[in-house]
């Protein structure tokens, strides 16, 4: 069972003195069927006056904090160790994607313990702030979904197509780049591809959620690995009637693997933004982010 260490640090520089700073961090990873978080901690510098952790309705760990001393910079560092279970086990009977959609559209399951998941799935079938259900996204996705095709097969095909059709191009898009623009320009980053896939899948009546996390990267042959060279990653997960959510990575055109470490999930990026904040005093800021994923064993 491989163990990973993740260090994710965000450094804010403010041009002027900031008197009050309120923030919310979703930087501490959660347990999932495929991973166990061995330990996780959040460090803030300068020290904050108030720090409070909770789980949001999706089960993600959130840290709410507040700084009330004048400051010109702020560093938020999350360090965690995660034990990853290798993907595997029996894939189960193939299920045609339409029957998944039909099951979802039907009444709630009678077993109380399954109702929560069902409700979350119903929520992930709807449009969300960054995922409007535009017809062009559905049209693009639907050619991977001919009648009676098993869900996992269709998803694998869709992700392979996205990887082939779209160019990975950092900095060309921002967090609020609309899906229509991504479709138009045929380029973007992991979160754009995830949003595009979500819009299309939800348009077909499937439940699909946004997953934020990390991906272990292998350094180029013969070069030492660079600290902080990794980055946040994002992919999707689709509801399956047997209670699983199938993780697929449209950026890399495949199901997720051992090196995919889950941080949080929600309807779209807006639900799981790693850091958001409100400051009083400073007008703007500069942000440096460094992520390092290392395999311990």
């Amino acid at each position, binding site marked *: 069972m491989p163990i990973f260490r993740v260090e994710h640090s965000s450094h804010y520089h403010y041009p002027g003195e900031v*008197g009050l700073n309120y923030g*919310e961090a979703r930087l501490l990873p959660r347990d999932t069927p495929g991973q166990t978080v061995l330990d996780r901690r959040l460090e803030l510098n300068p020290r904050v006056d*108030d720090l*409070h952790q909770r789980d949001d309705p999706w089960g993600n760990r959130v840290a709410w904090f507040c700084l009330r001393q004048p400051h010109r910079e702020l560093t938020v560092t999350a360090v965690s160790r995660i034990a990853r279970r290798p993907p595997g086990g029996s894939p189960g009977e193939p299920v045609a994607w339409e029957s998944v959609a039909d099951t979802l559209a039907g009444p709630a399951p009678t077993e109380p313990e399954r109702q929560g998941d069902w409700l979350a799935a119903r929520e992930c079938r709807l449009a969300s702030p960054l995922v409007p259900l535009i017809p062009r996204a559905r049209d693009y996705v639907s050619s991977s979904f001919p009648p009676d095709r098993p869900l996992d097969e269709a998803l694998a095909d869709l992700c392979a197509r996205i990887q082939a059709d779209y160019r990975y191009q950092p900095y060309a898009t921002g967090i609020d780049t609309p899906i229509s623009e991504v479709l138009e320009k045929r380029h973007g980053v992991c979160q754009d591809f995830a949003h595009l896939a979500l819009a299309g899948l939800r348009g077909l009546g499937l439940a699909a959620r946004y997953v934020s996390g990390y991906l272990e990267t292998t350094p180029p042959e013969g070069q030492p690995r660079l600290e902080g060279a990794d980055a946040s990653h994002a992919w999707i997960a689709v509801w399956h009637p047997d209670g699983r959510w199938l993780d697929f990575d449209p950026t890399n055109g495949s199901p997720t693997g051992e090196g995919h470490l889950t941080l949080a999930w929600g309807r779209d990026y807006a639900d799981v933004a790693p850091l958001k904040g409100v400051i009083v005093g400073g007008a703007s800021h500069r942000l440096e982010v460094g992520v390092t994923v290392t395999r311990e064993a």
Partner: protein
Amino acid sequence: MPSSSSLAPFPPADYPDLPSNWDEMWDPAAGVRPHWAELVSGLSGLGARDWAARNQRIKRLLRENGVTYHVYDDPRGYSRTWELDPLPLVLDAAEWQTIEAGLDQRARLLDLLLRDLYGPQQALRRGLLPPELILAHAGYLRPLQGALPTGRRQLIFYAADLVRGPDGRVWVMADRTQSPSGAGYALENRSVMARTFPEFLEGDRVTRLNAWLDAVQATLNGLAPWSREMPQVVVLTPGPANETYFEHAYLAARLGYTLAQGDDLTVKDGRVWLKTVEGLKPVDVILRRLDEEWCDPLELRQDSRLGTAGLVEAVRRGSVALANPLGSGLLENPAILPFLPALARHLLGEELLLPTAATWWCGQEKERKYVLANLNRLVIKPINRGLSSETVFGGDLDRRQLAAWKARIQAEPHLYVGQEPLSLSTVPAIQAGRMVPHRASLRTFAVGRAEDEGYAVLPGGLTRCVAGGKLSGQSGALNKDTWIVPAQASQAVLRAPPRRREQSLLTSRAADNLFWAGRYLERAEAVARLLRTVLDGLWEEETAPGLAPVLTALMALMGYAPGQCGCGDRPDLAACVRELTTLGERPGNLAQTVRALLGCAYGTREYWSVAIWRLLDRVERDWGQGSKRPKRVTPSQERTDLWLGRLIDTLAGLAGLASETLPRESAFRFFDLGRRVERGLTQATLLAHTLDSRLGGEAERESLSLVLQSADSLVTFRRRYRTEPFLAGVLELLLWDGDSPRSLLYQLKTARRHLAELSHASLRSNAERLLFSAEDRLYATENTITDLHVDADERLLLSTTLGELRSLLAGTSDAIGHTWFTHVQELHALRPLPPEPEED
């Protein structure tokens, strides 16, 4: 006009019987309905003059009490006066009891639903409500999921809009749960009516409303998370620009709570605190009149400038209670309506008492088909408030529009409902002096008491009506008082503890506004006096040379540098004057100063008395946008003089009344501080320019006379010196005479006394230190003038000193701001004190 005739015969012969309609007063078969009989016979007996006088009285009371309803971007300016029809809506007490029971039941049901939806969500899990109906609604605030305290009532305020159909049945048109407005207007309507028609409202003829506010207060105090003898409750308002700001200020004043904006609150140590002039005070309960999505820029709308960062977290930690809680707007979703009867059976085990307009949610297939097939006769409503589309009547649409709506609904069916249009009963109202049937709806209000006691319903409410057509938007609607007869003992009165008049805290924002109201008031008065003096001077051409110092002082006060008044390179006195006396708004000029004064006054309206409102209202009418004052003047224009005279009188009246009526607590001190600082600055400016002009002779005498005139001190001077004005005497009177309320010394001493009262016992504020050194400076020059002649050296010394005093006063104003109005760094992190003045 209503003044031309009496109401007799009542109802008039031409009061129409509309086919298939229910009229509240008139039954075509039997005449006046029994519960209207007393009112009808009473009004029929009023003579024409009496009736006209009462109509006038209503208008006057509403204006004087400042009852306004703002319409954003209204060209008529900040405030539109509330329009109240002299005829109430009368309801029979027996019928009211059934309505009251229905409202109580509906509120209890919605409360349980609210608690479930933000808690275990059983209604969604068990299929009582389709999940999309909630999860796709903009009013479902995810950060609040699981955050509301469990086991206690959450829907504190509930309002419902009721209408009556042609068969006489009362229907619920809409539920209001987000932050229902209107109760304050309803209470104010009653108090105006009670003063206008005492013979109908005195004694026990109509059910009284007073007890309801007691119930509101008892409820709010009881919400405090930690029991405290005197919980701190604030009314959270978006501010004076909000359409119902009058009501926010009204409720704060009536309940003895502090009126606060989002900036007045801060979250620290997981609690909400109020920034006051005495430091941070913990807040237990918030009567929320700010729309929920704007309340916390961290977790709700990030672009909100009206909220308080961290408020949601404080709610989550249970350290503050909000009424209504964040998230309650979810229940206004009209798509819930068709599910209410089943929910009532499931959650309450009761049948729903009040019927709702038949509603079909397009998120369900069968219902969607029905709505699309019947679109041309249904009402189309989006489930979210504030979408670009408002309520649409299918009957008003042409074929192309209907097709467009069908496409819209088909694209996102779960965002729309179709509703059976409700027919509205009519009620008589006065239009152009005649009694005309108007279509009416009634907004009713309830407040939740302890869980086992149900809701206290305001016995009456806010009736709104329009002549003909539909009651959709609020524009153009007329308001009415609502009478329940015969009178009922109110249930609310039984449990409410006696109301104690609490001393509400002065927020830093209010103190800031009061201080600046004082400054702008004084500046406006000074500039108006100077303008009038200049105009008078130009009237008699030969005095022009003596006018120069007053004119340059005026320019300085308005922020113009000499030669920059816009009259070009060539200094031309007449052109200068024309520019400066323009009454249109220019930065720094009189019209703008008056607007700024009004802005500060609206921001603190809960502090001003009725009499002050009357004067502010006059200023608003004269100087607000859309007033008829001349935009440009020629110096000799008599009309300008009239306008200025009227303004000066009004402002003087305002200053006097404020001093009389503001309680001698910190509110008054900040207001008066503003006046003293400004008057000190004005006086120093005026005298410095006089000294610098070195006119001498006749011109100087003229000039001094103008100075005295603009300081309203000419008479005092003549009485004291019994001679023509001379420089030494004018300086004595306007600088060093500590007994004269116009002297500079008087301003400094009075301001320092206020500061001493405001400062913490041991701590002398920076502002106080600055004033001390200003006084020292002034005293040091007192013996400069040894005889009646003021020579060049003495002029220079005095003028320099006055310059220093001006910067000390400006520094005082800044220091007051730093000490009491800004809390960015909190009190413990205030700037270090400036060094002590150098000389001994």
